[in-house]
């Protein structure tokens, strides 16, 4: 099956200074749900804005559904749906009117307009509030309206930038249920950016990990977890204990594949955690480091991220996220 997205060597430098993307390569399979996972500032939004033809890359090129994002921009814009991270509907008109304006922008003929809009609003569960001002909607309802308007043209590929940022868990669940049912029905490729691992884990068929402007690994969730291998030991420590030399010794313990130090916890990835644990404990004890708590688990996407990007994805509170987003925008 041809790739829905095929990006090669994408570099984006803003105003000759900020290098947001640093040679990103990415292939996304058609008709899959793809998650681009990475922390804030890793280049996710920039890559999506290039793929959706909003701006050209500084270097490199990308194909979306076979069209070049620079030369074939007009072709791409006719077949993609896009929901930016920030709110993208007019709040001083009704939900129905928002859909109507977008239907007219897309040139949907007047005889099928009303029915298409009604179906889209029905499908996303907004029929009852269609004639209310968007100003009175909750965050989750606004997101669903945005998705409905992106789905109006039955896009071949749907781009969602942090689709559930700022939403409570219930609203997140509803958004994803609607997206999944739409995807099942139309076979649309879904490409979404997120920094929530659980979201990528639950809803994505394939995941790309992005860090500092590069795609460092792609694969299915299972593949990625398997590639971390074995199990993960998480040790909570008294802070400020471990030097580089001790880290090397830890990595040399039997069955240990990788050891990464966080702020106050040590993650040890091992083929067999039970075999590794005594050796790890002995080393820590011998260096006088106090271990408060040990837990063992199967690898999560966070461990995958840790292994390939060398850091953990921070889990900021959602409100802080939005504040940060707004600030970034204001700074321009």
């Amino acid at each position, binding site marked *: 099956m041809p790739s829905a997205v095929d990006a090669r060597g994408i570099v984006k430098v803003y105003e000759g200074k900020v290098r947001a993307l640093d040679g990103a390569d990415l292939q996304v399979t058609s008709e899959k749900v793809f998650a681009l996972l990475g922390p804030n500032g890793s280049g996710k939004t920039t890559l999506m804005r290039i793929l959706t033809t909003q701006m050209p890359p500084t270097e490199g090129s990308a194909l979306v559904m076979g069209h070049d994002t620079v030369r074939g921009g*007009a072709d791409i*814009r006719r077949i*993609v749906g896009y929901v930016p991270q*920030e709110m*993208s509907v*007019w709040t*001083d*008109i009704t939900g129905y009117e928002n859909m109507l304006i977008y239907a007219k922008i897309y*040139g949907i003929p007047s005889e099928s307009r009303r029915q298409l809009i009604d179906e889209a609003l029905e499908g996303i569960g907004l029929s009852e509030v269609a004639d209310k001002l968007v100003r009175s909607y909750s965050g989750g309802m606004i997101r669903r309206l945005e998705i409905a308007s992106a789905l109006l043209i039955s896009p071949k590929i749907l781009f969602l930038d942090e689709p559930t940022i700022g939403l409570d868990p219930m609203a997140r669940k509803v958004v994803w249920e609607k997206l999944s049912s739409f995807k099942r029905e139309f076979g649309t490729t879904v490409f979404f950016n997120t920094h929530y691992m659980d979201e990528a884990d639950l809803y994505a068929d394939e995941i790309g990990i992005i860090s500092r402007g590069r795609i460092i690994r792609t694969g299915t969730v299972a593949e990625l977890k398997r590639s971390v291998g074995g199990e993960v030991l998480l040790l909570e420590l008294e802070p400020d204990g471990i030097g580089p030399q001790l880290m090397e010794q830890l990595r040399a313990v039997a069955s240990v594949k990788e050891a990464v130090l966080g702020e106050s916890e040590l993650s040890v990835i091992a083929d067999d955690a039970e075999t590794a644990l005594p050796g790890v404990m002995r080393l820590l004890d011998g260096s006088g480091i106090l271990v408060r708590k040990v837990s063992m688990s199967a690898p999560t996407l966070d461990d995958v991220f840790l292994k390939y990007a060398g850091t953990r994805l921070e889990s900021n509170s959602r409100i802080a996220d939005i504040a940060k987003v707004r600030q970034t925008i*204001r700074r321009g």
Partner: protein
Amino acid sequence: MTPLRDVIVMVELELRRIRHDRAELYTRAVQPVLWLVVFGPVMGALRAIPTGGVPYTDFITPGIIVQSMAFISIFFGLTVIWERESGILKKLLVTPLPRSSIVIGRSMSSGVRSTFQMLIIVPIAMLIGVRIIPNPLYFLAAIAVIFFASGGFAAISVFIASIMKSRERFMGIGQAIIMPLFFASNALYPVEMMPPILKALSSVNPLSYIVDAVRSLLITGDLAQLPMDIAAIAIFDVAMFIIASISFKRIIK
């Protein structure tokens, strides 16, 4: 005629917004009404300004309509800044709308607000005794002049928005552009009264042509200069649309 269709969609959007919130139309009418009701009669009583036989308040009514249009349009960029901070502009960029249609369409939607403003000011002017030429064709033509001229000023505002990315700075610049243009135009006094330098400036001031066109259609009925006024407004609009379309790239970065 896709570009025309695009502009009509943007105009429809603006009409729908106004329908849901009319309060802004009324609050924005306060200032022009003060000019009409206070400034006009007081200055008129002095009989210091030669208006060619037209009562002074009648003489300045077109100027006040045009001033109100210019303010509405120049602050339209605030809407564009807001749409940029939210995701609306990003989303519009990913629709089949050509970028020039986005710029011209968004600019022309300020023409909708200016037209409504005119529809509020004219009846008030008539109430206080301003004699408007009772010819509906002339009146419709004056509306068209205001509508299209508004697009040109809104395009200036899009250009300013591409440079000034904060609202506060934007407000200051907007005032600093419109007030000098207003005072250096024929809105409040005939050009013949001005010192030579101002007279020269007035001949390249778009507001003078707009005021002249509206005045001839609403008050004097002397259409001799109208073709030249319309040509000047058309050149102004096209030039501003081009500048705004070019600068638009900066906004979306």
